[in-house]
């Protein structure tokens, strides 16, 4: 993403005499920075500045009312002895590791189902996408809590089939499946992106494979998966980063406490509680930086490994 060879050169300047060219360049520079001003201001004031001060705060004790006190790596050291912190890591990792692949698998399966010319495709696409639009809202969290309430509709529905799970919301071992169902339910957003990717795969590849006698499984692994891999990569990256940041539903479903037995104490919820309920802003900043580092490393790993499984077709300009 350095310089800009990809962007179209302006033909105007190439024919003009040199002084005019450099004058144009100066004018462009001025205009460029003027147009970029809102973003630049926001970037410095709302992103870079806060990032630096959050890094600084993570090495301090700060409660918003007294000046920050430098304590070196104490916050970080304390974190790893903080049982609630470790629990929040466990909860979040469990959610990301199980929720994200399941959601993507559902998205891909349904996208493949919908990727054929049939009536009603538009309707199904919209119906499946709808949950993604409202999934993180407080309303849906309330509905989820009510539906999955102990002896609520879901529980009752399951007991009709002779399944008794001992409740969801109040049962520490069932809260995670409940949250995973909530995220899988929102498979529509990655599904729509998968669908767009599937439409790009040339149909003659499948025809040729059929002629060679390839079955659906072979076609999937030899054509669909490699051709779709850039889109799978994009969805995996975005959904993973997204999943780490779950907050609204965790806050609402657990009444902002992370219960029962800490089973819904997601990382961001604990960060919020430390920072904005206990006013331990230095501690919460250390948590934020750890999250940044972990997400950064994960992004790097996904990018690195992508070379071995993401297939970019050579014929794209």
């Amino acid at each position, binding site marked *: 993403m350095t310089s800009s060879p990809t962007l179209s*050169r302006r033909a105007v300047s190439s024919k003009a005499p040199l002084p005019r060219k450099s004058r144009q360049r100066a004018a462009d520079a001025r205009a460029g920075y003027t147009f970029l001003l809102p973003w630049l201001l926001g970037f410095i004031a709302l992103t870079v500045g806060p990032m630096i001060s959050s890094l600084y705060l993570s090495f301090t004790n700060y409660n918003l009312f007294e000046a920050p006190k430098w304590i070196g790596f104490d916050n970080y050291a304390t974190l790893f002895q903080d049982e609630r912190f470790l629990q929040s890591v466990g909860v979040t990792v469990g959610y990301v590791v199980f929720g994200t692949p399941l959601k993507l698998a559902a998205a891909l399966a349904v996208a493949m189902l919908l990727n054929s010319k049939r009536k009603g495709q538009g309707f199904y696409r919209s119906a499946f996408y709808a949950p993604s639009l409202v999934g993180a809202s407080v309303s849906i969290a309330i509905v989820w809590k009510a539906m999955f309430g102990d002896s609520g509709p879901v529980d009752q529905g399951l007991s009709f089939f002779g399944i008794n799970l001992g409740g969801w919301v109040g049962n520490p071992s069932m809260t995670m499946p409940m949250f995973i169902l909530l995220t899988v339910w929102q498979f529509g957003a990655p599904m729509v992106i998968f669908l767009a990717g599937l439409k790009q795969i040339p*149909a003659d590849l499948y025809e*040729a494979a059929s002629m060679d006698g390839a079955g659906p499984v072979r076609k999937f692994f030899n054509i669909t998966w490699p051709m779709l891999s850039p889109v799978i990569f994009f969805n995996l990256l975005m959904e993973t980063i997204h999943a780490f940041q779950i907050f609204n539903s965790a806050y609402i479903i657990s009444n902002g406490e992370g219960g029962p037995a800490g089973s819904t104490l997601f990382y961001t919820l604990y960060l919020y509680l430390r920072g904005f309920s206990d006013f331990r802003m230095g501690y919460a900043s250390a948590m934020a930086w750890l999250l940044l580092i972990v997400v950064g490393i994960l992004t790097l790993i996904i990018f690195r490994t992508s070379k071995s499984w993401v297939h970019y077709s050579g014929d794209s300009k």
Partner: protein
Amino acid sequence: MTTMTTPTPSKSATPPPSVYNPKSESMGMKRTKSVAFHAVALILTAIVLYPGLWMIASSFKPNSEIGGANTSLWSANFSFDNFVTAMDGIGGVSTLTFFTNSLVLAVGAVVGTILSASISAYAFARINFPGRGLFFGMMIATLLLPFHVVIIPQYIIFQQLGLVDTYVPLLIGKFLAADAFFVFLMVQFMRGLPAELDEAARIDGAGHVRIFGSIMLPLMKPALISTSIFSFIWSWNDFLGPLLYLNTPEKYPLPLALRLFVDQTQSSDYGAMIAMSVLALLPVLVFFLVFQRYIVEGVSTQGLKG
């Protein structure tokens, strides 16, 4: 996974439309397949839409029929009572006030985002200036940044400026193009517009302001519509921002009011709670029904999330 082993890799850039090959399938087989497809798709639709339908149905039911064994969507005792209670609001503030607050915030977010993101995107996409590539890379990097890293210092800044409990912290980022997603979306869109347009305008003596205002903006309508829809809905659903910055119920937008409502009524009035949830989602649902084509297409071409 390995790459393709298909013996005939395609050379054609434009694949033929994937129509059915009539030779390969009999009419009866086609019918069976079609019925199977719709059966599966409809069952899935029912599962996916059930929570929403349950919510709407419950909002019309008396409390006694909501909890427990009532998985049914039907009730013999439909009434609007829950909505009447829900409209009363909470803590002496009517729900209409919360609606107005949400609307102010959402419209502010749309206006701010459209203005700032389009201006910044024009600089990235159409003006050649030193440092552009670097800044563009940084902008993309913020897409991957967990926002929790910045919320604590941001809160401290706004607190020290005395701006807590105002809408400024919730809106200022929108006017400063802080949602990198929208900037990126518009940059991609503008790059797709033919370069001859601004070249011709330049020869005619138009400056960047004119080119942006009278050539780019009108052509960017699809991108502007996507951005408006999504920034409206995201702002409408936003919870963490208001939770951090607002403490007077008179200023609460709906999601925060909803939480207050839940906290204070708990399970005593389930019906009203769900009715208020429905009310809070209503604009999003209406938006979706009206613009669903734009929304779903916007996602597939721009990779937006929900």
